[in-house]
């Protein structure tokens, strides 16, 4: 399968280190009196090679923000650029190519295909795009995620943590411009969750991967270099290089 539409950034934009740029995003659900504004004008940017966390209590609009940033949902107004490409107006075919080249996903519920082995799940994005995997890179990923000896197992034979590691390897295999992680530890116990966070952090440090993570857990957010706090559809605070304690304080301040 070849890419349906070639997507190259306009000249001079790709060199920009801001790989995700959102400006003035709003998202309204429903109409009239029952309308709900999930996003009320959010602007942000994510630098290349950084791990950025979006935090907020439930209902703050953080999931909506991530869906808009990743091109899963169309904002009511505002724009999103990924790798310099304006994505808000793209048709389905172009969005598909964008996902192949620039985006990786890690889900709360792993979303592995149950009939494929761990390794087959990892290389799935490549086979969908009709590319063959770089054996060296695949080996590196499998050993880095600690799946070397479990690569022929089916998801049902793997623990939750192992499944999420497969999902991370799958997100990294195409070396996307940005990985969106949606509550990656939300369905795991705290010890396993910590291992997963370490893996995400490590991929930023070792491979220079850019990651945007949505979470409501302060401990998870604290591994990020930058944390944006969302409340009622607006970014209310930003922290850099912080710790769980400080995050917890901010969160309680927001929620009160």
């Amino acid at each position, binding site marked *: 399968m070849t890419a349906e539409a070639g997507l190259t950034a306009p000249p001079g934009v790709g060199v920009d280190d801001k790989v995700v740029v959102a400006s003035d995003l709003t998202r309204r659900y429903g109409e009239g009196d029952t309308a709900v504004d999930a996003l009320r004008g959010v602007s942000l940017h994510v630098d290349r090679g950084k791990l950025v966390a979006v935090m907020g209590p439930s209902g703050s609009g953080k999931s909506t923000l991530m869906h808009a940033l990743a091109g899963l949902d169309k904002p009511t107004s505002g724009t999103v650029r990924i790798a310099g490409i304006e994505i808000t107006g793209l048709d*389905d075919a172009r969005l598909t*190519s964008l996902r192949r080249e620039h985006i990786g996903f890690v889900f709360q519920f792993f*979303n592995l295909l149950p009939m494929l082995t761990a390794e087959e799940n990892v290389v799935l994005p490549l086979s969908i*795009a009709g590319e063959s995997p770089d054996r060296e890179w695949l080996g590196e990923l499998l050993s880095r995620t600690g799946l070397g000896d479990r690569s022929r197992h089916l998801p049902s034979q793997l623990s939750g943590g192992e499944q999420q590691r497969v999902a991370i390897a799958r997100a990294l295999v195409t070396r996307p411009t940005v990985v969106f992680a949606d509550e990656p530890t939300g369905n795991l116990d705290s010890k396993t969750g910590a291992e997963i966070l370490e893996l995400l952090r490590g991929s930023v440090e070792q491979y220079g991967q850019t990651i945007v993570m949505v979470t409501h857990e302060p401990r998870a957010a604290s591994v990020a270099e930058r944390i944006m706090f969302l409340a009622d559809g607006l970014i209310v605070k930003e922290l850099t290089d912080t710790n769980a304690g400080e995050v917890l304080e901010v969160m309680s301040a927001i929620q009160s």
Partner: protein
Amino acid sequence: MSRVALKGLLGRRTRALLTAIAIVLGVAMVSGTYILTDTIKAAFSTVFTRAYKNADAVVTGKSAVGTDSNNAGAAVPRTLPASLLTRIRALPQVALAAGAISDTAGLIGHDGKVISRGGAPNLAFSHTAAGARFSPLTLSAGRYPTRPHEIAIDAETASKQNFAIGQQIGVVARGPVQRFEIVGTVNFGGVSSLGGATIAIFSLPTARRIFHKQGQLDQINVAARHGVSPEQLVHTIRPLLPPNSQVKTGRAEAQQQTKDTSGFLNIFQDFLLAFGGIALFVGSFVIANTLSITIAQRTRELATLRTLGASRRQVLRSVMLEALIIGLLASVTGLFLGLALAKGLNSLLVSFGIDLPQTGLVFATRTVVVSLIVGVGITLLAALRPALRATRVPPIAAVREGAVLPPSRFARFGEPAAIATIVGALALMLVALFVSGLSTTARLLGVGIGALALFLGVAMLAPRLVPPLGRLLGWPAGRFGGGAGKLARSNATRNPGRTASTAAALMIGLALVTFVGVLAAGLKTRFESTVSQEFVSDYAVTATNNFAPISVASENALRHVPGVLVVSGVRAGDGKAFGSRMHVTGVAPNVSRVIAVNWQTGSRLTPALLGTEGAIVSKDYASANHLRAGAPLAVQTPTGAMLHLAVRGIASPPKGAISPFGDVTISTTRFDSAYQNPQNLYTLINMRGGVTTANTRTLQRALSGFPDAKVQTIAQFEKNQEQGLNLLLNLLYVLLSLSILVSLFGIVNTLVLTVFERTRELGMLRAVGMSRRQVRRMIRQESVITALLGAAFGIPLGIVLAVMVGAAIKYTAFTVPVGTLVVFVIAAVIAGLIAAIFPARRAGRLNVLEALQYE
């Protein structure tokens, strides 16, 4: 990506299997039909090729009014004068020529009845030393008959009926039973079975005596001298021929006869294929529904694939690939199942009285190609809509709990489109049925396509009707089924689209069964009123199989029996007038005492005054040809003779009845002089004292020498005449049950998928105290409600179809067979219960803990 589809298919093996069954049965019917009809055709071809293998030229008589008559007793062609053989033998180009008699004669079994199986012919041939070279028969034991009271019979009949050489056997032909000594048995080379036919061989003089063909021959086989081609031989013989006879090369004659039977077999083949087509049509509903459900259940998986970069086209392709594999596996399975089905179909036909010759099974390339193309094609077509829906799964569904498929783009046009389809379908059918000047093929095609479109339209509308109807039909379950019943009732209507297409599959089968049942009831009503109004005699004598002609000798045997007041035979034959074929009836002067008709011109005295020139014409025939009383009428008989007649009477059947007479009716006196070997369609009798046991016994005794004749009271006659209709009706029911079976698999499929989908919910129900039994009952009742929905759609639809078609054909009166329809509803309930067995067991066996953890 294709690996995802393949592995996915392997992971859902049960579902794939259940889906495939929907197509397997239809394909098996198609392939089985081809195998069976090809086999029969090959057998006929072998029979005819063998029959003329050594004949370079074949001379036969020819009917002056055309062949392929469906009027029993009229198909006997003209004979040839024996002198023709002498003249042919005298030709220098001829090496050998032999004449033969071929006719029909019944062999009497040890039970005193004519040996007859499956409506197959009772053949009789003459044997001569000169003709041996041309004979397709080989002696299996003993010798050929040479003396007046000797006979040889086919080995199959001899062994099946326990006759041995040296034993006596009765033969009935053109008169009372005659006894013959069996001196030999014969085989027909090349075929394993002649399909119920019996063969009797006599010496030529004996055959001539039995069949009243003194100085005549039915056929002359000729072998050419060395160096003379068959074509040259035919050319030399042709000038010698009398009128109404023909000469052909042996090969041409074999081909002609093969072609004649092929015509019949092709109709038969199309008839059976239609049922395969119906089963496939129903199967396509099942496949479309199953795939829709599977895709709805895989929404999350498909959305994940989209987030990983899969394009819509890839999603479409993966679903279609899955369908392709299912279709291919199902078609191959169906193709081979067809081999078994061909045998089954043959036994079915034999049990319904259609027995045809057999050879080894013929498995033609065309069978393989058509089966695979049809099976795979239908599967792909049915998969298209679900596959297109799958492409509409948005990537964001990957992150949403309980995401559902977006409604189809056309959903909002659903209702108007459904109504438009229904109206269009009805209009098409009305045009096909009632607009004059259309060919039969066009009419059948129009009605067929219209019916398919009607089913589609109703199926499209069904989702709207399911909630109210389901609540109504589920009322007993909700009222008396306890908590499980209430849940079953709401489960049946909670996904109306799904329930609707499941029920729609059953609807088709039930609609067709109802259609056939209602139409048959109408035909019967019409028939009953015909017999009760027209046949005013006490007794009727017909052939034992109710439709074959019987000898005039049997009529004569009744004439002087004490107590008999009236004996009136009705003859039937073909004729030609105004340039086209028509039916001729011969009646006795006393016919008005046994048959009542309405006289438009003439009176009940007219038959007695017909003489040799008079004719009675039916009202329809008179108006079609502008005939009035006194009008001259020229009718040509099969022998080529011209009957110059004058119209003396115009008769019409009583209201609601079918005419007892053909287009033109003449006196038996004239009929017997104009037709060779005249035979009776039936003989009607009035007795002193009417119908009594003693009278019945008297008549039976009088006819004891005629085992092919059957004495019946007029009430029995009516019943027996209906028997053929009942047989056909049952055959249709059996063939239609195939498509009902397919729809049952559809119900099983939907229920299994539903149980799978509701695993967590079922676990919860068990956790809050529902017993296994209650779970099973809940599934069973949901199944019954679905089946009843199928009946609620199908039965009225079937009645509508029957009313439309019934209005177009005149031999029916509209009657609703309430009893039969009640049986269909009960059958639908039972079908629902059967379909639920497997899914209910599955649901009952769920482990509560695992079910709750199920994700």
